[in-house]
């Protein structure tokens, strides 16, 4: 065989490649995005963990404000008014009050196509940045256990839709004051913004995009699904931004409700 014909590449690393020792020749500050990601995610996870195990300051009885971190509140330790779906979990310190839903939310985000990219890069350095060598000797990607489980993303998406419905219920319920009257305060707006952002993030999911229409080969025969697919596609383009935005709105909503609940300040009221 002559040189320019197809040759089977030998599997050992570096076979015939240009002998360049440097791990990367990038001159820009390529490490900033993965570092920012890592810092952002660690900060959020720390905050969320602390809050989930605090088991207090999660509900404002006067205005029915329930933080999404405790929704639905199903532990025997929940304040009765906050538990819209009954209580049945034992009240122990190591079990979060919303222990039924939190794992699914965590898994939804952990298997999300955006977060995967983010943590594969920022934590696993696989790769840390484009054209920067990763430190691992072997790589099998998502071909085997446990990472093959990433393919279950769409189930967590289904769960996330249900949980978003619960969050929506919470946000609507919060328009009722403790006295059973209609009322609006700043907290309502916070809850509302959070719920809208959550829906946007959930709907922009890649699995959703596929289920809604991406699976089809003949859009022309399914005009309604094509239209929906178009909307989801547009949202999907902002999936990363929405992922970060919802981390922000979740933490802010929770913090706001904690602050009001703990009496650090009172909720400014617009109506009642």
């Amino acid at each position, binding site marked *: 065989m*002559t*040189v*320019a014909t197809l040759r089977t590449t030998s599997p050992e690393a570096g076979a015939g490649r240009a002998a360049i020792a440097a791990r990367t020749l990038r001159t820009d500050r390529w490490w900033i995005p993965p570092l920012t990601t890592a810092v952002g995610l660690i900060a959020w996870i720390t905050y969320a963990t602390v809050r989930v195990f605090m088991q207090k300051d999660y509900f404002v009885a006067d205005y029915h404000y329930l933080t999404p971190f405790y929704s639905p509140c199903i532990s025997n330790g929940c304040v009765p008014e906050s538990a819209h779906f009954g209580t049945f979990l034992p009240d122990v310190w190591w079990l979060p009050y919303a222990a039924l839903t939190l794992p699914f939310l965590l898994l939804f985000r952990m298997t999300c196509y955006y977060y995967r990219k983010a943590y594969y890069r920022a934590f696993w350095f696989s790769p840390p940045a484009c054209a920067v060598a990763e430190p691992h000797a072997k790589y099998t990607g998502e071909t085997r256990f446990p990472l093959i489980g990433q393919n279950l993303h769409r189930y967590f998406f289904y769960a996330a839709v249900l949980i978003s419905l619960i969050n929506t219920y919470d946000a609507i319920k919060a328009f009722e004051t403790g006295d059973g009257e209609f009322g609006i305060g700043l907290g309502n707006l916070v809850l509302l913004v959070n719920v809208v952002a959550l829906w946007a993030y959930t709907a922009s999911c890649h699995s959703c995009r596929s289920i809604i229409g991406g699976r089809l080969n003949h859009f022309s025969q399914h005009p309604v699904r094509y239209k929906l697919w178009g909307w989801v596609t547009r949202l999907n383009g902002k999936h990363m931004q929405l992922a970060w935005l919802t981390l922000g709105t979740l933490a802010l909503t929770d913090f706001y409700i904690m602050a009001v609940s703990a009496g650090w300040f009172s909720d400014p009221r617009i109506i009642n």
Partner: protein
Amino acid sequence: MTEIEQLSYDVIVIGAGGAGLRAAIEAREQGKKTAIISKSLFGKAHTVMAEGGCAASMGNVNDKDNWMVHFGDTMRGGKFLNNWRMAELHAKEAPDRVWELETYGAVFDRTPDGKISQRNFGGHTYPRLAHVGDRTGLELIRTLQQKIVSLQQEDFAATGDYEARIKVFAECTVTDLTKDGDRISGALAYWRESGRHLVFEAPAIILATGGIGKSFKVTSNSWEYTGDGHALALRAGASLINMEFIQFHPTGMVWPPSVKGILVTESVRGDGGVLTNSEGKRFMFDYIPDVFKAQYATTEEEADRWYTDADNNRRPPELLPRDEVARAINSEVKAGRGTPHGGVYLDVSSRLKAEVIIKKLPSMHHQFKELADVDITKEPMEVGPTCHYVMGGVEVDPDTGAASVDGLFAAGECSGGMHGSNRLGGNSLSDLLVFGRRAGAGAAAYVDSLGSQRPAISDDDVQVAARRSVAAFGDGGQEGSENPYTLHQELQQTMNDLVGIIRKEEEIQEALDKLEGLKARGEQVVVEGHRQFNPGWHLALDLRNMLLVSECVAKAAILRTESRGGHTRDDYPTMDAEWRHVLLVCTLNADGTIDVERQEQIPVRNDLLDLFESDELGKYFTTAELGGRI
């Protein structure tokens, strides 16, 4: 000499652009063991640069279209110098060739009823160009490439070897053809990568090497366009025709200097773009020649109405055939009404919405954004003529693509005749498909006709050719030493300035004198380094071809004392019917000089003449030719 690897095939295709790949597919489908030899990687050929589309009278957008209208447009565009049989075959077969591409997996833009969409283009009466945005050439090459892969998959299933019956030799250059008596017997080539020679023994060789644009300084052509097929044919004893006709595309980029010449697709005008000078005037209305007065609008209002109601209005003069538009731009710039960088303005930003521009002209938007920092949705482009296409090429039999040497075939840009003195946009891609297929079939039939009487390759010929190809490395015998890059630049400057878009006798003579000098200096070229992927050496070999072809162009240009299509003589500014029926034929003498001789065209068949009004024919033909028609 070292041992040279020898391979045996039924058909060798030189060139892996549209014509070459289509020819190879046909030869392989007819059961011939086929090799494709390409200077570049597989799928990179210059065909990818074709933007606008592929002309075929499918009638999907306007059902009045048919092969006869397409034939008429082609003849008109070529000023009736075309080989009428080629134009006829082309117009008749183009639709089938396009539809066939869909079965290979091509995905063209669609009409609302799901057919292949067709767009307007200069010189075409109806919307006729099948297209994919403005990257039709890429679609074509990728489709043909993938068809070849699919044939290889079939062969793999049958034999366990992908390359059993069709193989691509990528980054491999043919330097000479060999003959056994009067018949083609094979080709000598070398791997660009290693510099090692290899010999192909084959009774039939199809040239599909494209054009010659790299002999000019401002060109839309890539480095491959060095006239290899033209030169190989000459050296093998075949003849070239129409070499004086070179198409300068009216719209090439003019700024920045490093991208000068890169094509701005005609679709910009087809979709509504207008040409204006520095005074803001749509100057094309001043340049409608008499022969086209009936088909083109004379007011801006009528021209603008045409985009929405083509049946009741005449077309805008921006869509005149390319030669007319290129000359008009040239005149405007010469008259001092050009842009700061020596072009004119081409504007779509004021004519179409930004989203429409991005949808219809994505690669133009991208190209200007990335290369010139110009947003064509907001500001006009600056454009000027660029050397784009050579109408001339190997003289072939229209039905089989056979050249005058037994076993030699040619298709695509490197063959001549089809487009006459000027090619219509969109007729190139269809030409590739129609005549690529015909050359493949012609070569297969020729191989069949040989039976066991195959020509044999002579070892002596191979050794001579091999020595010649490495001569530039020098044996200490050369007197001076010339750098191939310098010579190439001088050649490009000479051709551009002296045998360019507007020509005169003294200048062409000056060019011929300079070419003589360059040829002598070409003998003294010495290249540095070794044979592995050595661009200096590659250029030295290409230079030999460019010099030969440039001489043909200049010698034919000085003889044709009229202006027609891609040949404009300042000293003979009008078209002369006495020249219409005359072809200028180039051949190579044993002493290395070029001969150009006149040859009478075969008269146009009567039923084809009947397709035209007699007063139109009267503008092109002599009274004697038309006999009783007038």
